């Protein structure tokens, strides 16, 4: 039982980081119709920027993280203006490819500056662990999970209840109508890119506090796709729920299913290991979801434009 709880909490913590990334992907998709493969790049660059600010400026952790979010917001808006705007009328595959190009470029740039090795991330949260009835959870996990969850919820609230959020939703739903009532749509699109890059940067920083800082951080961008498909491509709430769900699923696969499966296979066959099963489980779920309910848990049917 304690193992189950432990796994659930670990899953929720990583799941809320997935949610932060996926919310960014959905936000960009809703607003500009772009499927952003470079979200993982934002996470990685954000983590490196946080690292530089923490190491070299002596800022307090909070200021450094906020600083990196600001830098990422600028980068996000800049990519939208410089790269995506000229491609407004390009075919879908070209737009996808340009974001892949951004990912390749960002990864290479980070490789050039910081090298291929994993870097120990300076401690942001206090050391130690909470002991809740036999379950040990390090502060790192608690803080990262809580922060990601709170920010995701906060962002959803912002999107739903503030005037700026209303303008965002309006621009995303129907850009012509938004223009007609005087919303500066292209500014809203830039703002969406800025916000989602900032969220991804924060997610990257949180992930770096858990797993260390390396180029591998950019891989998380790909995991956003199972998350958003399960949640429904155009639903921010869906991204949050599906992120948590997938985090838990991965954690349970790693902690319970893999050992059980391996025990069974070793007893009955000559297969010794099932490898990193938790890495493919999200994609298996993705395929199932697409076959059974393509609009996702929270999506609406028929939202795809022909």
């Amino acid at each position: 039982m304690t193992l189950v709880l432990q796994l659930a909490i670990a899953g929720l913590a990583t799941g809320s980081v997935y949610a932060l990334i996926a919310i960014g992907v959905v936000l960009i998709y809703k607003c500009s119709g772009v499927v952003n493969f470079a979200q993982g790049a934002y996470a990685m660059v954000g983590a490196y920027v946080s690292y530089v600010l923490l190491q070299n400026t002596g800022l307090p952790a909070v200021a450094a993280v906020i600083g990196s979010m600001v830098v990422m917001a600028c980068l996000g808006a800049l990519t939208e203006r410089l790269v995506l705007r000229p491609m407004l009328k390009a075919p879908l595959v070209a737009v996808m490819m340009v974001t892949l190009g951004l990912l390749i470029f960002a990864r290479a740039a980070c490789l050039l500056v910081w090298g291929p090795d994993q870097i120990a991330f300076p401690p942001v949260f206090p050391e130690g662990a909470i002991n809740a009835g036999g379950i040990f959870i390090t502060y790192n996990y608690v803080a990262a999970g809580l922060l990601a969850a709170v920010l995701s919820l906060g962002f959803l609230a912002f999107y739903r209840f503030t005037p700026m959020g209303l303008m965002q939703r309006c621009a995303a739903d129907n850009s012509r109508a938004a223009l007609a009532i005087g919303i500066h749509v292209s500014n809203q699109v830039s703002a969406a890119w800025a916000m989602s890059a900032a969220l991804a940067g924060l997610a990257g920083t949180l992930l770096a506090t858990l797993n260390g800082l390396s180029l591998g951080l950019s891989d998380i961008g790909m995991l956003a796709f199972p998350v958003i498909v399960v949640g429904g491509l155009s639903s921010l709430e869906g991204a949050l729920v599906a992120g948590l769900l997938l985090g838990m699923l991965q954690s349970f696969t790693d902690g319970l299913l893999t050992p059980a499966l391996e025990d069974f296979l070793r007893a009955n066959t000559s297969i010794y290991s099932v490898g990193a099963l938790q890495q493919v489980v999200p994609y298996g779920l993705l395929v199932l979801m697409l076959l059974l309910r393509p609009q996702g848990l929270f999506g609406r049917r028929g939202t795809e434009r022909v």
Partner: protein
Amino acid sequence: MTVQRRRVLVAVVIAAILVALSFALGRFGAYLVRAVAIAGIGALSLNLLIGYCGQISFAQGALLGVGAYAAGNLGNIGSGALLALVGAGIATAAVSVLIGLPALRLRGLYFAIATLAAQAILEYLFKMAEPLTGGVSGLVIRMPTLLGFPITSDQSYAALSVAVLLAVWLGITRLMRTNLGRAFLVVRESEIVAKGMGIDVARTKAWAFAISGFIAGLAGGLIGFTNRLASPEAFTLDLSADYIAMIIVGGLGSWAGPIIGAAFVVLLPEAVQRIGEALNIADILSALREMAFGLLIILFLIFEPRGLAALLPRLRPRPRGAAAAVPGD
């Protein structure tokens, strides 16, 4: 002479020049010719699927892997190179149709994401299906034989690759003039229109996946035979991205674009490598190479979205004629 005939003639001449080059330029030249030819085959396969039939796939890397493993296994149990390549083509076509099944229900973006999943799952299977793939360490492939003679020299690999490339290119050119080929284009433009014209959309897509998969299997088999090793980390999503880059940089849905794009994507890193070695900055070369690659993709897509193939007619001051019959997307 019709445009078609002239184009075939040009292709045969270019192929002959490539083979001659591989003999003239020594081992390194042969390596480059071979690499470009194999990438060209893979790019033609992907162009058929994305450029002609409009089905975006991110699983090309894994499909090449399937081809390499299949050809390797067939070669290792003693079949000749040609038989092994055909076998690899058939196996890969089967996997490709399987990946394409969701495309019967899903469109555009959703299908593209489904292929992302296929790529991830196949990568996992490459690592896990040890009897067939050799697991994480990969499958060692024995020297293949062609009509009973072992293929030893780099030049003969280059010649074989160019020959397959030429055959595939001619086959696709021919295919695009049949009803099936035209049906691909209609499905790309609009599935609703295709249905209205009495085209069986599901069957047309299945054929696109099968043919594209078969060609990918040929390319994968050649990769396996020339590297003499098929390992999981060679067939990742990055490889899929390379191939999509090739067909976009070359020109989506154009007849020469994929091969020009393949040459560009294969030769660019080599060029950066040479320049880097000349400037004595070997330690940051791999990063620079990737940066140049990423940056060029971005710049290309922004400034010349129709690809390098669209630049070709500008070099010749004459009307494009039937070259415009299959316009870029």
